[in-house]
């Protein structure tokens, strides 16, 4: 199942021209507000008819300005999770959940999202996080061919965000349909996305796998502290002292607190600020993870910072250092260095 999107739409002095494919998994539409993310997602939902373009979901043409096809939203088989949940206030949670599917079992979704104790309540009596869980369930139960999520966490505080994020991870790993996920948070995108489409002022500037796009130093402004790369790793061994050895490409990483069985594939995030660069092999340092790496790109920011893209065993990642260090060390593209990784977060 894939989604092909090609949209041109101009309004209020804003010109959107976006073309990309969204395969199975989470495709994050990433960009600042006003970059056209919500316009794209509303066009896919059928809530807005773009002036030109074509939208195809799994071979089904939903919109084509040339042939005049414009399937109404209720016939598109999409599950839309809105930023503001948009639960129907006059219905109970159960009635909300079954609105898109009046018959059929709801137990699996209710269990997955932990909604059992909420079923008889009205939306006014739900917390923000609970309401968003119900909204996810309601979209899932309508049996969609495609799930759309428009900044579903933006209205929640940090604690609620970390309460809801795992449900989207479950969704990514278990849903058989593509998920289009709009976000301006690099952190969310790094954690969820399998494919990333970066939008800037109505244009797609980058599109590709999360590993490639998020480690591209031109994507994330150097001022963003949450800039970081995503890597695929595999559990090699669990050592007796409680540490676990992971392999990424040809290199190994040692991490604490990992109980995934040997052979499991994991998704790692390495924040750019947790990577240091050394030009000579290090001795007498407490950090366990020093990887040989090659510099593949350098991007200076507007401030004193710079992002350095590194590659180890085919896996790209980022280091955030100062421009002063960049000059002092004389770093250039193609140079072989040693990357010291201070911290790694494991998502799964």
């Amino acid at each position, binding site marked *: 199942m894939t989604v092909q999107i090609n949209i041109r739409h101009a309004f209020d002095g804003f010109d959107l021209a976006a073309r990309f494919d969204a395969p199975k998994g989470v495709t994050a539409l990433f960009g600042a507000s006003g970059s056209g993310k919500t316009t794209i997602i509303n066009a896919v*939902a*059928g*809530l807005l008819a773009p002036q030109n373009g074509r939208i195809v979901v799994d071979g089904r043409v939903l919109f084509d300005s040339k042939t005049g096809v414009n399937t*109404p*939203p*209720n*016939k*598109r*088989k*999409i*599950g*839309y999770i*809105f930023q*503001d949940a*948009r639960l*129907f*206030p*006059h*219905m109970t949670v159960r009635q909300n959940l079954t*609105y*898109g599917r009046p018959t059929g079992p709801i137990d699996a979704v209710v269990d997955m999202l932990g909604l059992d104790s909420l079923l008889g309540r*009205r*939306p*006014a*009596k739900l917390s923000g996080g609970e309401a968003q869980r119900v909204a996810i369930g*309601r*979209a899932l139960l*309508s049996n969609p061919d495609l799930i759309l999520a428009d900044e579903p966490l933006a209205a929640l505080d940090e604690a609620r965000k970390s309460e809801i994020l795992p449900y989207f991870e479950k969704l990514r790993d278990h849903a058989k349909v593509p998920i289009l996920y709009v976000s301006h948070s690099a952190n969310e995108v790094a954690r969820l996305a399998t494919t990333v489409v970066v939008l800037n002022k109505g244009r797609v500037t980058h599109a590709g796998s999360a590993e490639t796009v998020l480690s591209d130093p031109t994507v994330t402004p150097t001022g963003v502290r949450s800039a970081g790369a995503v890597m695929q790793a595999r559990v090699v061994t669990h050592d007796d002292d409680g540490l676990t050895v992971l392999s990424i490409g040809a290199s190994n990483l040692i991490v604490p607190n990992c109980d995934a069985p040997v052979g499991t594939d994991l998704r790692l995030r390495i924040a750019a600020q947790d990577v240091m660069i050394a030009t000579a092999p290090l001795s007498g340092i407490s950090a366990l993870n020093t990887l040989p790496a090659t510099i593949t790109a350098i991007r200076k920011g507007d401030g004193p910072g710079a992002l350095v893209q590194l590659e180890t065993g085919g896996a790209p990642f980022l280091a955030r250092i100062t421009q002063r260090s960049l000059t002092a060390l004389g770093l250039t593209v193609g140079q072989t260095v040693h990357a010291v990784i201070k911290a790694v977060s494991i998502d799964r």
Partner: protein
Amino acid sequence: MAEWLSPAEWQAVALSLRVAIWAVLLSLPFAIFVAHALARWEFVGKQVLNGLVHLPLVLPPVVTGYLLLMTFGRRAPVGMFLEQTFGFTFAFQWTGAALAAAIMAFPLVVRAIRLSIEAVDPKLEHAARTLGAGNARVFATITLPLALPGIIAGAVLGYAKAMGEFGATITFVSNIPGQTQTLPSAIYSFLQVPGGESSAIRLVAIAIVISMTALILSEYLSKIIARKVRGQ
């Protein structure tokens, strides 16, 4: 109650209740439809429709009554057609009084309902559409229930207006006791004859009681329903 009212007075009260109830029942479905169209749709002639709906509010009631007479009277085109085809007449019948009251109440009912439909968040309707609901289902399950407090308020307002309607009614269907003599026309008639004041005062008291009861009841119902709709 029938004992402290004379048969003529009682007749006027009963007729007024019947006329007002039918006027509301008659105008409500049209009012909901027109209010929804004005609140949600864009179409050519929207301003014209809006103007037509509000016309009875700004025209002198006598003019509205006279226009009704020219349309639905025994010799008028629509009136003749209805009588010949269905054997049904409005002229000088209580049904005519109900029609006049319905038309006079219509703008008030439409206004109240339009405001309450406009207050329903279109985003909820969009959400319902993405969940597979077509226009009719969105209207029946989202828009209508959420606008219900306003619809009730509109219906009660229309009922009060229909109870008090005088000018258009007396022009269109005259003032025939037992046929078209509603509460206001009866009060008017009693005031024209010497010694009629006591009857008029009793009817005035009844008019006040009925109107106040309707207002309080609608306030109460609207509150309960609004609370239910908001889910509290």
